């Protein structure tokens, strides 16, 4: 029996505003408990919410970036339930008319492009935190996080594997950082996913009963949780047991999911429009302002890189995977004149996707923190384009730059890295190698082309890699002909 997993994802994105969504208190992380909780956050009697315009701006940025519909009149609603870290006894959220509806996200899985439709994105406030450990027989309540602005982004159930789900989450994560609405810090809980998972037999049209895995704050946990859950559901069904709609938690220590509550004990949240807040009205001018402040989006950049710079799909995908990478790429490219742009672009892409990506990965850095600046990389590439450096020498120079050196030309000079391109000099090395390797010479003449490679290698070794391999090749062939 072949099974298909169906996944929809709800993501809580913490919007990177200075102050909270309905109060003037700071959103700073790591302060002493309740240091960032003002009278509004504490829900003192008589206080009222006032909407933070910056949070709205960020929600609009997201809507525009995903080509969604912006509801120019949206409504805040109260979601009522009791919990100690929910000071008002209700959360201000949006239900019937969210600020953003629709839109989509595109990414590649195994080289194939996939587009996932978004259902909606709405603004809401975060709750506080209950601290159960430090108090004997009691719980502490920290309301620093209470009232932090969130954008809840809901996808359609269109993902079919944990890998797709992770790629979706990674793409969303990169996008919210790209458009500057979220710092993306997953450890601090600023980007967390709930995964709705169901399974069905391949070919079935109806959706299976879903269970929602709450609060997954790493891509790895997202993948593990979905895989475990899908396996569990398939086993249940194969054993003839029903799937009951439920909210579940993923235990990262055991790698298993466990029940939190079933639909039967779900709350009746008694949503109704919040009378303390007027409908949120976005006029055309506001939209225009936000639209014009958005950076060029990854999709558009990718298209441009392919058509203008003749780069290939996989190269481009990684260049636009983060704003830092794209910025690095463009800053480097800006150092070249029109004539060399295309050639330079390919080399920059190679460096970024090869040596630099590996080094950054090793040191856990992103492109904005790369010790080899775009200017240095452009100098390095210039010296390969003018044949001063061979690829091999360029790599050695790169290592020096990574280690802290600053000037490409100074390294070349100090280390004597200049490529030997004087044909007379190369000929003398070639003659030497031919004299020392009669066997290989004979093999080559007998038609074994491999022997030539070995001879070229000998010359390169003799010149400590400084000879131009193309030239060596040509001269060798001429001499052995």
């Amino acid at each position, binding site marked *: 029996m072949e099974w298909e997993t169906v996944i929809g994802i709800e993501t809580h994105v913490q919007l990177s505003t200075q102050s909270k969504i309905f109060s003037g208190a700071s959103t700073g992380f790591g302060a002493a408990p309740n240091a960032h909780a003002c*009278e509004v956050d*504490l*829900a*003192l*009697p*008589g*206080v*009222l*919410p*006032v*909407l933070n315009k910056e949070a709205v701006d960020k929600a609009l940025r997201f809507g525009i970036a995903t080509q969604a519909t912006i509801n120019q009149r949206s409504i805040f609603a*109260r979601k*009522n339930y*009791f919990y*100690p870290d929910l*000071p*008002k*006894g*209700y959360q201000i959220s949006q239900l019937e008319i969210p600020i953003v509806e629709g839109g989509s996200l595109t990414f590649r899985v195994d080289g194939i492009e996939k587009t996932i439709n978004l259902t909606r994105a709405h603004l809401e406030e975060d709750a506080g935190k209950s601290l159960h450990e430090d108090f004997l027989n009691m719980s502490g*309540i920290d309301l620093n996080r209470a009232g932090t602005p969130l954008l809840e982004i809901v996808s359609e159930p269109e993902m079919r594997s944990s890998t797709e789900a992770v790629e979706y989450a990674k793409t969303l994560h990169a996008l919210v950082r790209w458009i500057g609405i979220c710092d993306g810090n997953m450890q601090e809980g600023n980007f967390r996913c709930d995964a709705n998972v169901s399974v069905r037999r391949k070919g079935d049209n109806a959706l299976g009963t879903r269970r929602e895995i709450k609060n997954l704050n790493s891509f790895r946990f997202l993948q593990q949780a979905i895989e475990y859950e899908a396996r569990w559901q398939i086993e249940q069904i194969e054993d003839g047991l029903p799937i009951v709609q439920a909210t579940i938690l993923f235990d990262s220590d055991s790698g298993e999911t466990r029940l939190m509550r079933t639909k039967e004990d779900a709350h*009746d949240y*008694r*949503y*109704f429009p919040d*009378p*303390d*807040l*007027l409908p949120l009205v976005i006029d055309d001018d506001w939209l225009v302002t936000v639209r014009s402040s958005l950076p060029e989006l990854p999709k558009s950049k990718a298209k441009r890189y392919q058509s203008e710079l003749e780069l290939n799909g996989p190269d481009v995908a990684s260049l636009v995977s983060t704003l830092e990478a794209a910025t690095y790429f463009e800053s480097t490219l800006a150092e070249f004149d029109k004539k060399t742009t295309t050639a330079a672009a390919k080399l920059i892409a190679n460096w970024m996707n090869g040596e630099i990506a590996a080094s950054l990965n090793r040191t856990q850095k992103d492109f904005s923190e790369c010790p080899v600046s775009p200017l240095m990389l452009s100098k390095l590439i210039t010296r390969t384009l003018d044949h001063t450096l061979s690829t091999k020498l360029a790599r050695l120079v790169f290592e020096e730059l990574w280690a802290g050196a600053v000037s490409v030309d100074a390294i070349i000079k100090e280390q004597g890295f200049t490529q030997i391109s004087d044909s007379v000099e190369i000929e003398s090395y070639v003659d030497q190698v031919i004299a020392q390797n009669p066997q290989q010479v004979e093999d080559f003449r007998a038609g074994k082309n491999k022997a030539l490679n070995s001879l070229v290698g000998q010359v390169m070794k003799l010149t400590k890699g400084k000879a131009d391999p193309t030239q060596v090749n040509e001269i060798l062939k001429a001499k052995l002909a």
Partner: protein
Amino acid sequence: MMLDKTVKELGDALRLKDFSSVELTQAFLDRSKSLNCEINAFITIDEEQSLAQARAADETLSKGKPTALTGIPIAHKDIWCAKNWITTCGSRMLENFRSPYDAHIIKRFNEYGAVIQGKTNMDEFAMGSSNETSWFGAVKNPWDLNRVPGGSSGGSAAAVAAGMTPASTGTDTGGSIRQPAALCGISGLKPTYGLVSRYGMIAFASSLDQGGPMAKSAEDLAILLEAMVGFDVKDSTSLQNKPVDYASAINESISGLKIGIPKEYFSDHIAPDIQKGIEQALQEYQRLGAILVDVDLPTSPLSVAAYYVIAPAEASSNLSRFDGVRYGYRAPEYDNLNDMYAKTRAQGFGAEVKRRILIGTYVLSHGYYDAYYIKAQKVRRLISQDFMRAFQACDLIMSPTTPSTAFKLGEKASDPVQMYLSDTFTIAANLAGLPAMSIPCGFDQMNLPIGLQLIGNYFDEAKMLAAAHQYQRATDWHLKKPPSTTV
């Protein structure tokens, strides 16, 4: 005697140094203390804090630039948070809650140099029409100590009527300023929704709540209103409006003023004495040059029903914050979190509050929301449209404020529906967000005050106050004092 004077007269006297704010404040404090055991109008009197403000006011009166309110003691309904003052909202839940911040209007009054004379008694969380639901005991009507003062701003009304304070503040969700003003024979004004900031007013029903002044005369209301109105960045429903000089506006002539008379408000349910009192008031208005026109408010009979869906719905959510976690009452013993919530709220809230939380929770519940809440909102819109049509034909609408004069303590306490119906004429203005006021216009056979209600179009407070002031210049009902045998 200074205790009989209006705010206007007291302000003039203070600025002329006839007496100091400290003397004035002390005199009202003394009278309040001596009468409070009978009337129970105040929940909190804090002489030290009041006198400190009075001393500061005297400084301003002698050296600075005094306002019309500098040095005037004002009693505030205990629904307004005032920094360092116990603010109870008439509930056991907040019996010991000392507010760490000032409501917007308290800040405004402080800036005007007024003195907080104390916090007045009220129905618990403003839910009641008789002041009997207060955790701190019922307030007595100064005109007859066996009768209720009305509610929920009963303490504020009784305090002014008994001469315990020159003026007070109230809040009005369904008539809570106008009904007690009518029953205690004073003047009270509920402004247009959004004119007075709700920041720091403990919420009952957010879309209906509106604070306003209560005083002896329309002229005093104008002076107080000026201090209370104005945009507040902390209240998203607060309105940005051009400032109006209410104190000058009240002198406008009302000759040619068209007064709309809605027949729905003159039904058989009105006590005959009230009917008579209102008719005489309307005749007086005609003498003053006003013209009476008939208007229709066909949806108004549905206002009580719509109100008792919308107000409890909002209240059930607004009162969720009283959970025993962060401040206020917490049950002394409980087994777990849910038990703590249940016991705290069971013990901290009184019966009427619980009744409304239950109604509100019910009407918002899944499966009932459309039938109750949405339908009530539709009725609400129809009621507003009625008024908009009516105001095409008239400038102001007049009616009785209440169907009966002050009723006996306990008379309606066991029959919530009868109690709710005592707001039958006042509720529509809240649903529509319109300004409305009550002024005294006579007495019934038992010498109990009768209130005349004025309802204006949006932002027509000045027009209403002028109509009230012109009437009060021609009559003296507002100057009548309760018999000295009672107070």
